[in-house]
């Protein structure tokens, strides 16, 4: 990467009393990217966002925006703007006044003509032209969301911060807004940093996903990378649906390990970290990598317990003797009566390379800080 | 008496009331506090353990076990009521008032519940006119001796030959001066008002009471204290408006200011003057040689008194010189009764504040009912206060 990163964290730690919310994060966010900070509540993602915004100061380390150390720079002097959770729109101002609020703070002062022109553009950008004189409480949730967006963007920030911006919207609106946000980011070309606990949202919208857990960055990568090549068991489990099968390393051969599952079946799995013979592992198998067929072939045998037909796909809960319940997802092709019925025995197969083995122990540590670090900050 | 929960307390309610009265005595004077605060209905209840003691045999009539009296703050020796209860079994509830006007309002409204009260001379004719006080049955007041009373003080209690009220004590309205701050000797109302605008600038108080404030302003010109004449009142108003910006306060609560040294000179009633002088010798009490007010407080019985027998019994008890002398020692105002004066210590009788020389008393006038109720004087006072 040749360009100066828009946002850079250098060994940033944030403590609240005895509680460490963020511990030793190093992170560089490239320019003009849509980046999602993804993690369960309490993982430190919001704290990171607030440190960029200037609402929190790191206990240790540096936060840089476009190469400038932001230590001691108050929020109102930072070239970033934020879309707050539940928007934090000013209830005593109308839509246009909300949007032009930032413009009015500019020094030297902008002419009122420029202010109203730019506010008008921002309104048009979020498709709210003509709503300028509305009161905030007269707007729907989706409209408020657009006002918040326009208000943050009208100042032409270097980076736009979004704190769970879609959490308050219903599902249909959320999907629309996801697309809109993506288009907007591409149009404007500035960096968007999105904080979310919704992995689907992170995967669908962003160029990069930064998965956080326990105050640390667990994995930074493109969505497909995060999904296909999770760095550890936590990521594998947190991002997308997966089946986790317990077993022991029975043998090693190059990149692959042979894992003996609880029922004695041995399967070959790829590994992300060195493993030793006899080590307890969890094997991750994505539901869509499982294939079902009539009994007789396949690595595992089971009985269909449940079937959810979703049109293009069907999801099956399959009981495997000695292992437990597995989730499988099969494409549905029109005209082929390939649906299995509950109670039917099936054989389960998977492509070579689909199973991923992770050390078992690591799972215990991943979520341990969750209780201490509430997302709501002190 | 069985052991009571009170025995273990550091202070009993009785003692607390005594302490409170002692605290109030000397720092807050008669009409001011309650009148000022509008708390005329505030009641200091001294009656305790009602109806426990049986009525002794001496009473010919059934006196019941309780009665109530309306009077002024710090005006009685609390022991008097204790003793009365011990003798008769009647517990006395004491209601204290800030002004005659409040007493009148309460009585006029009916249902006051009082069997005895203490009106000032100039209100008695009004009470009689309104028909709300009793013509006293003197047969029940054996302790009262009209011959031992100074006729000057009894006069206003008698209307058309009928006795409606008997005197409690009398007093004068003069002014108190802090002689350390205002060393020039003074002896007249003219000097009072002139000093208020000169050496006493910002340090002089006048009553928040039209009767005395206007009356003493009239005295500046030698007019009657009770004048209702337009031209005379106009002159008084002119003087009052001229003095107003120089005043420390328009208030009848003058003891705190005088004691603290904030005020150097004030219009003052006898008993307050005596108390101030007793505690702070440099505060002198002066009667204007032009005259001014003399007053008598009376005892009277309301027509609707719920317990007239007890009212008469208490009044008769209070007319006993041996009882009355203690009352006078407690409240400090001079007595109207020669028999009481005979029992008072020499230093009290020799106190010129309480018993001024005859030539000073001579020009003094009793306030008249018409003076007090005159709407024109009320408006004049309002103009003075709002100037």
């Amino acid at each position, binding site marked *: 990467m040749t360009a100066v990163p828009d946002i850079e964290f250098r060994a940033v730690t944030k403590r609240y009393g005895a509680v460490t919310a963020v511990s030793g994060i190093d992170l560089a966010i490239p320019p003009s990217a849509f980046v999602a900070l993804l993690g369960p509540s309490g993982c430190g993602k919001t704290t990171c966002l607030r440190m960029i*915004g*200037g*609402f929190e100061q790191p206990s240790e380390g540096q936060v840089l925006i476009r190469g400038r150390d932001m230590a001691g720079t*108050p*929020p*109102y002097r930072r070239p970033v*703007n*934020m879309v*707050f959770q539940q928007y*934090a*729109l*000013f*209830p*005593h*101002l109308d839509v246009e006044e909300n949007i032009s*609020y*930032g413009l009015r*703070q*500019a020094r030297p002062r902008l002419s009122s003509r420029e202010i109203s022109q730019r506010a008008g553009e921002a309104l048009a950008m979020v498709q709210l032209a003509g709503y300028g004189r509305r*009161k905030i*409480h007269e707007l729907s949730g989706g409209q408020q969301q657009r006002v918040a967006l326009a*208000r*943050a963007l009208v*100042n032409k920030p270097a980076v736009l911060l979004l704190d769970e911006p879609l959490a308050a919207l219903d599902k249909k609106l959320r999907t629309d807004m996801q697309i809109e946000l993506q288009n907007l980011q591409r149009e404007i070309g500035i960096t968007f940093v999105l904080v979310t606990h919704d992995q689907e949202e992170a995967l669908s919208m962003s160029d990069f996903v930064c998965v956080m857990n326990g105050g640390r960055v667990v994995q930074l990568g493109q969505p497909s990378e995060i999904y296909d090549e999770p760095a550890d068991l936590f990521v594998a489990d947190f991002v997308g649906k997966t089946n986790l099968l317990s077993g022991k390393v029975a043998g090693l051969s190059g990149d692959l390990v042979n894992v003996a599952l609880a029922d004695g079946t041995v399967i070959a799995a790829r590994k992300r970290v060195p493993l030793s013979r006899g080590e307890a592992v969890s094997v991750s198998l994505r539901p869509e990598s499982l294939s079902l067929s009539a009994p007789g072939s396949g690595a595992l045998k089971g009985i269909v317990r449940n079937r959810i037909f979703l049109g293009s796909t069907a999801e099956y809960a399959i009981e495997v003797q000695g292992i437990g319940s597995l989730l499988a997802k099969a494409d549905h092709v029109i005209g082929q009566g390939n649906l299995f019925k509950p109670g039917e025995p099936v054989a389960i197969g998977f492509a070579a390379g689909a199973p991923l083995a992770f050390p078992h122990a690591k799972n215990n540590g991943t979520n341990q800080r969750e209780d201490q670090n509430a997302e709501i900050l002190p | 008496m069985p052991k009571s929960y009170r025995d273990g307390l550091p202070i009993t309610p009785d003692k607390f009331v005594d302490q409170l009265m002692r605290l109030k005595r000397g720092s807050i004077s008669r009409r001011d506090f309650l*009148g*000022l*605060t*509008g708390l005329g209905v505030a009641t200091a209840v001294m009656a305790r353990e009602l109806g426990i003691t049986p009525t002794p045999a001496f009473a010919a009539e059934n006196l019941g076990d309780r009665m109530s009296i309306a009077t002024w703050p710090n005006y009685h020796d609390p022991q008097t009521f204790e003793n009365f209860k011990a003798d008769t079994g009647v517990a006395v509830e004491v209601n204290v008032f*800030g*002004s005659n*006007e*409040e007493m*009148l*309002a309460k009585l*006029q409204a009916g249902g006051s519940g009082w069997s005895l009260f203490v009106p000032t001379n100039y209100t008695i004719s*009004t009470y009689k006119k*309104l028909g709300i006080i009793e013509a006293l049955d003197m047969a029940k007041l054996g302790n009262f001796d009209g011959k031992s009373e100074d006729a000057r003080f009894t006069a206003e209690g008698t209307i058309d030959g009928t006795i409606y009220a008997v005197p409690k004590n009398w007093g004068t309205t003069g002014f108190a001066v802090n002689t350390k701050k205002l060393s020039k000797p003074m002896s007249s109302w003219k000097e009072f008002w002139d000093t208020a605008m000169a050496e006493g600038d*910002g340090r002089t108080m006048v009553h*928040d009471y*039209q009767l005395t404030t206007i009356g003493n302003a009239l005295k500046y010109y030698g007019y009657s204290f009770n004048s209702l004449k337009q031209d005379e009142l106009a002159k008084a108003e002119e003087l009052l408006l001229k003095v*107003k910006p120089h*005043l*420390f*306060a*328009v*208030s009848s*609560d003058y003891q*705190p*200011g005088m004691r*603290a*040294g*904030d005020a150097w000179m004030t219009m003052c009633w006898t008993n307050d003057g005596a108390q101030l002088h007793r505690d702070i010798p440099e505060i002198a009490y002066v009667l204007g040689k032009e005259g001014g007010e003399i007053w008598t407080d009376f005892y009277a019985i309301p027509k609707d008194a719920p317990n007239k027998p007890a009212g008469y019994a208490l009044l008769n008890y209070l007319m006993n010189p041996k009882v009355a002398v203690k009352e006078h020692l407690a409240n400090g105002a001079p007595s109207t009764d020669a028999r009481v004066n005979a029992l008072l210590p020499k230093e009290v009788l020799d106190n010129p504040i309480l018993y001024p020389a005859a030539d000073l008393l001579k020009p003094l006038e009793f306030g008249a009912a018409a003076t007090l*109720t005159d709407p024109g004087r*009320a*408006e004049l*006072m*309002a103009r003075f*206060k*709002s*100037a």
Partner: protein
Amino acid sequence: MSETGYKPKPDNATGGLSSAGSQPAFPMRGSLFRKNLVTTLLLAPAALWLVVFLVLPFIAIAIFSVGERAPEGGYQAALTFAQYANLPARATAFWNTMVLAPIGALACLLVAYPVAYYLALRAPQRWRLILLAMIVIPFWTSLLMRTYAWMYILGGRGIPALLAYVGIEDLRLINTPGAVLLGIVYGYLPLMILPIYVSLERLDRRLLEASADLGATPLSTFLGVTLRLSLPGVMTGFSLVMILLLGEYLIPTLLGGGKVFFIGNALVDLFLQSRNWPFGSAIAITLVLVSVVVLIVANRISTRLSGARRVDLI
């Protein structure tokens, strides 16, 4: 039946079409009646209280105000507006009151706002309740007692006596306009602090962050967001204190030496000294009307400034 044309018909006509129709009508009405009865019973004491101690006295005062003063004082039945015509005789008192009330309320506000601001936004959470209690508890003592305490503090044996030690002699603090203002601010401070505190407490902190995020300095955030959004509380406190000050007479009398004449003093004199009840009643009625006007104006301003749809006065 087209969807747009459908309207629910009365129960007896729908024949089971609507779910409400399947319910018998009487139990519904019965429970509704019971509910109303309970509500009525619960409200009765308050309503009775209002009627006996507010409405009836007000009616009595209104009747007095068109009467005449009896020769011995008090009230005499009549139907005349002479008392109202005489109102200019107390014009100075009205004027003094109309000056004192807003100035007193303003002084109170200037002291109360920083205190409320500190309590709501700056004080550590665990101290808040204690600090609030310290503000409210003195309020439980009678205003008269507390004002008397100030009389002694400001009187010659109080602060002036202390100042005499450092050579400042014969300073008079009591019975000055400053003393009155001090007494008013002290006496009414909690009434001003509490509504402002509540409005600041309710303030969404994210709005302050949003303002800072949009480039506003702390001062412009305070002026543009904090102050604006606490205005309903300010107006509540202001009108509350102002209305009480319209009837105030104790503090000016005790700490001002009774030299300035307010409506409250005029009323006390008319009822307790000159016993001119009808004129006093006419003044009282006028004062009530003035208070109502103040309330309405305050409410209007408050609604407009805050952009809220509704303003709670208490």
